[in-house]
């Protein structure tokens, strides 16, 4: 007798049912849609939904339905022209309130969506869009940390009346600066200076050294501290880029770390890259400083050097301004920034965190009616030619964007004025999204047009359908009824694989489709191994039922071993590959797992159902 335990039938049936449910959303296709979110990032509600529906009705722009999905309003259209018309109308009339993005909405019935079941998102190569790979300047991040130590050292040594000549960054090993050195004035006690700095920054390795030029104290970062700082910078940049992408209003964006110091940004549907890159890559922050009212600006300009404790800046019009070296607050301490109309024209209303607020309170109390300045700092990289060789260097642009008199005591909430409308808008966006902890540079850009995406889908799906049909027909010719069983099992395999991919929410790319097609070819192998074994047993004169059982049993080790080795290739690809290649690896590896399940469990269940009960021995319909 051929037997198959009842619990195994139940397992196979329930796995298949669940798989069908998860794979189902993929068959409905999608409509063009417009995603609308509020500019202040509050979730969209029913009132807003009605308002926008009314807005479109007024302009007789036809849409098929609207729905709110995790705080975003989706408006569904029958055609792309209508979708574009709607976007333009909203962008023109309601641009201060909403951010729009072209998107797609699945045509799956609402009960599926309510269950949280979604189709596989399509990769950029299938949908069109912009792929950006940023390189994070991790050494710049270390340098920034050292700069802040430099400032702390100057301040503390000044407070303790320990005279020094200069504070400089040093490079102890490799090309990364990793320490700060204080060159002490003759007569200053190096030991005392060392203790003061140790107390200030207990985590640092502070040592006094004797240089040819005189006594000095230096603090050096350990390899672990450098690594931590770099890691922090990348994490911080990731968050900032995510925030900035959200501000841009792109539907289903991907912002991901890749390797140690790279960040991938994928923006489906985005074609024009110039504006996007401008916003994403901007390294901008603010500093608040008091104006030095005692020092002479003219003298500083003439000598090219500011008086002790001050620094020379220029404002937007190129006029020199003298500011104190001590920082009151920096952009990191900002918690919110929105554009605001003030008495003095457009401005940005700013909120600070508790520490920033306390510092601001202290400063404004002590400096009533004195001027305070806001410095805007932007870093970029430019290419210059030096001696016939082109090199890239970092440029820091520091501009005083506003100088205003402190009219009252304030702490964590105030306004920055003296900006144009567009300056205010960009500044608010950049401040709100957070500053980049280290400069980033574009290492790779790929733009895929929407028509190419559509063509790729069409070709991928065609290859999938034709390839599968070819295999199905061939299997039936070669193995007859058993071939039909194999075909059902293959179909189940594709369903199971799609279900897993949909569950994971992994984006489907063209190599991914290729992976599915290959999996079909591969999954056949397990069946072939079993069937060939059954045929062999039959040739040896074994009864049909025993032949089936022996076929499964004897083929098992070959199936397992051969699949494990292919799995190795898949796993290695997954570890070393990125992007679409990793997608291929995921599909390949999952496909191996699902095909093991469907061919060992699924086909055995089917064959047992068909042949298990037969007591008469005949020939198996295996060709």
């Amino acid at each position, binding site marked *: 007798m051929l037997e198959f335990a009842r619990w195994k039938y139940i397992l196979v049936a329930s796995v298949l049912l669940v798989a069908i449910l998860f794979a189902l959303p993929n068959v409905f296709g999608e409509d063009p849609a417009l995603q609308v979110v509020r500019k202040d990032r509050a979730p969209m509600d029913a009132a807003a939904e009605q308002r926008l529906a009314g807005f479109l009705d007024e302009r007789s722009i036809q849409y098929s339905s609207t729905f709110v999905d995790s705080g975003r309003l989706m408006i569904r259209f029958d055609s792309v022209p209508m979708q574009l018309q709607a976007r333009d109308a909203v962008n023109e009339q309601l641009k201060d309130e909403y951010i729009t993005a072209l998107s797609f909405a699945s045509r799956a019935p609402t009960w599926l969506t309510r269950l949280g079941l979604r189709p596989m998102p399509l990769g950029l190569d299938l949908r069109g869009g912009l792929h950006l790979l940023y390189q994070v300047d991790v050494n710049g991040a270390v340098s920034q940390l050292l700069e802040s130590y430099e400032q702390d050292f100057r301040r503390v040594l000044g407070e303790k009346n320990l005279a020094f000549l200069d504070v400089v960054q040093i490079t102890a090993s490799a090309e990364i600066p990793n320490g700060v050195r204080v060159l002490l004035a003759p007569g200053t006690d190096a030991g005392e200076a060392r203790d003061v700095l140790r107390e200030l920054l207990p985590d640092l390795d502070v040592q006094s050294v004797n240089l040819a030029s005189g006594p000095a104290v230096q603090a050096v970062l350990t390899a672990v501290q450098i690594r931590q700082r770099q890691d922090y910078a990348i994490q911080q940049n990731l968050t900032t880029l995510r925030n900035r992408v959200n501000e841009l209003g792109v539907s289903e964006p991907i912002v991901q770390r890749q390797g140690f110091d790279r960040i991938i940004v994928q923006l489906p549907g985005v074609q024009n890259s110039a504006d996007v890159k401008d916003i994403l890559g901007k390294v901008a922050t603010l500093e608040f400083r008091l104006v030095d009212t005692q020092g002479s600006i003219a003298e500083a300009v003439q000598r090219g050097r500011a008086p002790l404790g001050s620094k020379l800046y220029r404002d937007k019009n190129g006029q020199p301004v003298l500011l104190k070296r001590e920082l009151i607050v920096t952009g990191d301490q900002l918690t919110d920034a929105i554009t605001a109309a003030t008495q003095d024209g457009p401005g940005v209303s700013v909120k600070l965190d508790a520490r920033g607020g306390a510092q601001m309170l202290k400063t404004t109390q002590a400096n009533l009616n004195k001027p305070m300045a806001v410095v805007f700092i932007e870093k970029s990289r430019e290419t210059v030619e030096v001696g016939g060789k082109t090199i890239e260097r970092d440029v820091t642009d520091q501009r005083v964007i506003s100088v205003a008199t402190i009219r009252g005591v304030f702490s964590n909430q105030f306004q920055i004025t003296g900006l144009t409308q567009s300056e205010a808008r960009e500044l608010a966006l950049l401040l709100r999204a957070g500053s980049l902890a280290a400069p980033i540079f574009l290492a790779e850009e790929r733009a895929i047009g929407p028509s190419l995406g559509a063509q790729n889908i069409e070709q991928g799906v065609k290859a999938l359908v034709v390839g599968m049909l070819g295999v199905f027909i061939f299997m039936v010719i070669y193995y007859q009824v058993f071939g039909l069983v194999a075909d059902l099992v293959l179909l189940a395999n594709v369903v199971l694989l799609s279900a897993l991919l949909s569950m994971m929410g992994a984006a489907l790319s063209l190599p991914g489709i290729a992976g599915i097609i290959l999996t079909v070819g591969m999954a056949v192998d397990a069946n072939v191994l079993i069937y060939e074994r059954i045929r062999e047993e039959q040739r040896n004169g074994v009864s049909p039922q025993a032949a089936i059982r022996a076929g499964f049993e004897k083929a098992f080790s070959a199936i397992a071993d051969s699949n494990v080795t292919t799995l*190795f290739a898949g796993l290695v690809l997954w570890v070393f590959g990125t992007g679409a290649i990793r997608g291929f690896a995921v599909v390949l590896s999952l496909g191996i797992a699902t095909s093991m399940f469907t061919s060992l469990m699924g086909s055995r269940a089917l064959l047992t159902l068909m042949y298990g009960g037969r007591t008469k021995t005949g020939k198996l319909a295996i060709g």
Partner: protein
Amino acid sequence: MEFFHKQTKIPFMGIRKVSYGLSIVLMVVSLGAILAKGLNLAIDFTGGVAVEAALPSAADVDAIRGKLEEAGFHEPQVGIFGSSREVSIRLPPDDSQSVTEIRTRVEQALLAVEPGAEVRNLAVVGPQVGDELRTSAIWALTFTLLLIFIYIAFRFHTWRLSVGAIVAVMHDPILVLGIFALTQTPFDLAVVAAILAVIGYSLNDTVVIFDRIRENFERNRRLPPMTVLDQAINQTLSRTIMTKVVTLIVVFALLFLGGPVLRGFSEALTIGILAGTYSSIYISSAIALDLGLTAEHVFPTVKKTAADDMP
């Protein structure tokens, strides 16, 4: 339907000198082609610019090339692909300009010649990224081979089969690379993925044969190894061919219907699958045999096995 109605008795091991000879010739030609002509590496590996654009009218390739040179690009390659209204541009990597700058200037040059041009696909890859990908591709191949070696040695208890499997498996990617070098087919990241898949598949066949060798040794230890190996290959032959035919059906679907993006990928798979079938039949077992494989290697200690219990 059956490929072979009766059990075949082809003396694969007897003719192994011939297959060694053929393989050596193939390897020498492939390695020679790789060394002499080199691979036509796509910008995934070299860095640089690749643009595909659709134009409103037939492309004036020379004018576009001229404009690009004017814009300061050295050796721009401009060609037509698909219809006469589709143009592809390739530029070598350029350290001196930022990715953004390069993109802007290429687009400007193209639009100056063909105002209605639509950029359908654009990729600008920095040289650094390309370098890293090359390194990681080589690591990926090395790791896969290493894992396979260990797994086979572990599963079949002998390094002789491992060496056989590894040689057979190396054989296939080298042949793929050789043909890609000879025909100067663009070699991109997807081709690397295809080669790794090929390694997996080729091994798949080898392992199925090894599995049968193990089983046959188990059944009759006294048979000479050469007979056992021949038997195993013949017994699995119809499975090997059947599986390859089915895999080739889907790979051909990809090759002919999958479009230009998957062309290199499918070509590598086609070559690799054919080579893999050959190498696992003719090479992997033959090498193990010449390394002195015997039943004792596969079953180091004599013990009662499950097979003996079977009715």
